[in-house]
């Protein structure tokens, strides 16, 4: 296992991305564009994916000679838009960013633009045509997508030819397979249960929460300078990971993302204790779609319900 200990795979040296990443024409194109952008000084850093010791992971390429580190395959699960988050000052200080994005990821860029957290000229977007990603990225090489390993969120992807990007690379990809159970089916199965069972389900799920706030930290749209959960005067949300505090935190997190969440699922993937946050997020998407006829897209001009008021908005809940 000598390669596990050498760090050789991250030493770069213009290596070809280790053993796992297939160098498709799309990946070649991606590397070429990255190299040109860096050489021309159009960007200072390209944020994409690389092949590392434990699988695919984010990489920050600043030297054009290292553009060949970049890969793209079904292990490239991460929504890298989180690195554009204005809270990431240690990334921002690298200089102008060129970001590699999948169609789903780019919706989060649109979210940041819509909420004035980012200027369109602040970032160069390199889109990759994507045929779906795996649920887990930590494997030495990408495997063929099947109903059992595909990320459920990929089902019914509606942004396979992203419009917001500056470059779009790769061949058109087949549609992602239908997962063994879709997120909507899981929600429906849950909703079929009586209230007490649903309550027991969520109580059990939230009881696992250790309040590490990984869900918040990795979310590309959790942009608050100071999160309500960190406020102590007054303390809106109890910081103890007991039932009260955990319920309060998880409900607040979900509601603050209603109509904003792009469904990238990073919160769920990063949760160290496995809380199925996608179910919460997706349910809120369904409610927002139903009540406000709004589906989050990669069009930054689209007005989001949270930033909009219409006289005919339903407001029967205001008593």
């Amino acid at each position, binding site marked *: 296992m000598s390669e596990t200990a050498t760090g050789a795979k991250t030493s770069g040296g213009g290596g070809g991305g280790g053993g796992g990443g297939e160098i498709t024409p799309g990946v070649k194109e991606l590397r070429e564009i990255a190299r040109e952008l860096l050489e021309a000084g159009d960007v200072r850093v390209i944020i994409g994916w690389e092949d590392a010791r*434990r699988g695919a992971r984010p990489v920050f390429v600043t030297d054009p000679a290292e553009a060949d580190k970049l890969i793209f395959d079904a292990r490239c699960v991460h929504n890298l838009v989180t690195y554009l988050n204005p809270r990431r*000052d240690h990334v921002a200080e690298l200089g102008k960013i060129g970001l590699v994005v999948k169609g789903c990821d780019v919706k989060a860029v649109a979210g940041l633009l819509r909420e004035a957290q980012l200027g369109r000229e602040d970032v160069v977007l390199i889109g990759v045509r994507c045929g779906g990603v795996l649920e887990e990225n*930590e494997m030495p090489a990408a495997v063929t997508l099947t109903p059992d390993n595909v990320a459920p969120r990929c089902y019914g992807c509606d942004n396979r030819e992203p419009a917001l990007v500056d470059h779009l690379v790769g061949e058109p990809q087949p549609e992602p397979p239908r997962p063994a159970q879709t997120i909507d089916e899981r929600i429906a199965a849950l909703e079929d249960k009586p209230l007490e069972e649903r309550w027991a389900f969520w109580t059990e799920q939230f009881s696992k929460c250790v309040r590490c706030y990984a869900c918040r*930290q990795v979310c590309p749209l959790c942009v608050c300078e100071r999160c309500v959960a960190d406020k102590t005067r007054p303390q809106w949300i109890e910081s103890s990971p007991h039932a009260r505090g955990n319920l309060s935190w998880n409900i607040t997190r979900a509601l603050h993302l209603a109509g904003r969440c792009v469904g990238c699922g990073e919160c769920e993937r*990063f949760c160290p204790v496995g809380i199925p946050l996608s179910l919460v997020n997706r349910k809120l998407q369904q409610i927002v779609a139903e009540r406000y006829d709004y589906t989050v897209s990669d069009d930054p001009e689209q007005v989001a319900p949270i930033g909009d008021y219409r006289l005919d908005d339903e407001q029967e809940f205001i008593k």
Partner: protein
Amino acid sequence: MSDERFFISESDLRALAADLLATGTEVIAPVAVDACASPAAMASSACMRPGLEPEDLEYRALTDAAELDLARGLPILSLKGYFLPEHEALCRWKQKGIAIEIEAVPTEFAPRVVLAAKPCDSAALAVVDEVMNWDYKDELWNGRRAATTIINLACPVIDESCFCTAVGAAPDAIKGADALLTPVKDGYVLEATTEKGHALVEAHKARLSPAADALTAGADVDRAAARARAAANLEIDAGSVRDWISTHFEDPLLAQLAIRCNGCGACSSVCPTCHCFDIVDEEEGVGRGTRRRCWDSCQASSFTLHASGHNPRDDQHSRYRQRINHKFSIYPLKFGEVLCTGCGRCTRVCHAGQDLVEILQAIDIAARRPDEAEAAAPAADAPSPVAP
């Protein structure tokens, strides 16, 4: 003390657990939590995937000896929570006018047993004992430590993120524990090393028999093989790493380690040695409440935020450096022990790809073979900030 080694069959080991439970002793052990048997089943995608283990492994208080899981890897969370709970009351208060009544919490605990603990998890308790008994003696920690007898289960080594032997632990270590079980054919070799361990052996002698030499020899071979597997993942000189870190605070390798890091703190939650906590007063109605301590993480910006608004560790690089510095330099310089037992949970839990094996390797190279350092630094893709 005798270094006698015993044989115990698997059924006797379960019976021993049952005996303990029958006397009302709490027994904490790895338990496979069947996600599909709980209400979570309907939502767990794992349950829908044929051939995949639908079960997580957790340390839990046994309700039945049959639950004891002796076959699987590392529980999601370490044993830490049984000694430093995620949250616990330090005292309760009542206030009426100017009169304040403080209700203390108990600091003595009923005897309990941890069975089949991972050696990296018990070792972590011994390491953290140092800080819990430094200037302030932490009564709650010490009370739980004193009440607990820990029986380790020698580990076959889990995966490529394990590196216990690089930081002074071992897959067959008894550090922090009272006895060790080593799997052999049809059962286990049991050896006790502390008074508590011997007391447990004495109390359950009927279930033990002297271990034949051939058995113990086989157990020793397996233990050595497991140590070699862990060592193949990472070999460093912890002393050189400690000294290099203490003299290279501003070195780019340390100062720019965290480019991918999301600052989520999941690493410190799952870490068996991370022990920092926050103390909060929670009102529970008018004039009464509870003072609690909760796990905290140096990876959160609020961890060092001063009341003035100044934050001495105001970016993720400096927070991540603190994590490395505390574990591999500050703590060893103060207490003589590395604040890490190589369990690898931080690496496994980090989906952003912060990899402690790789980072320690790079620091070790910088410390011992600086001429190779430039080629191997994980920070190679995280260069100095450039002026726009």
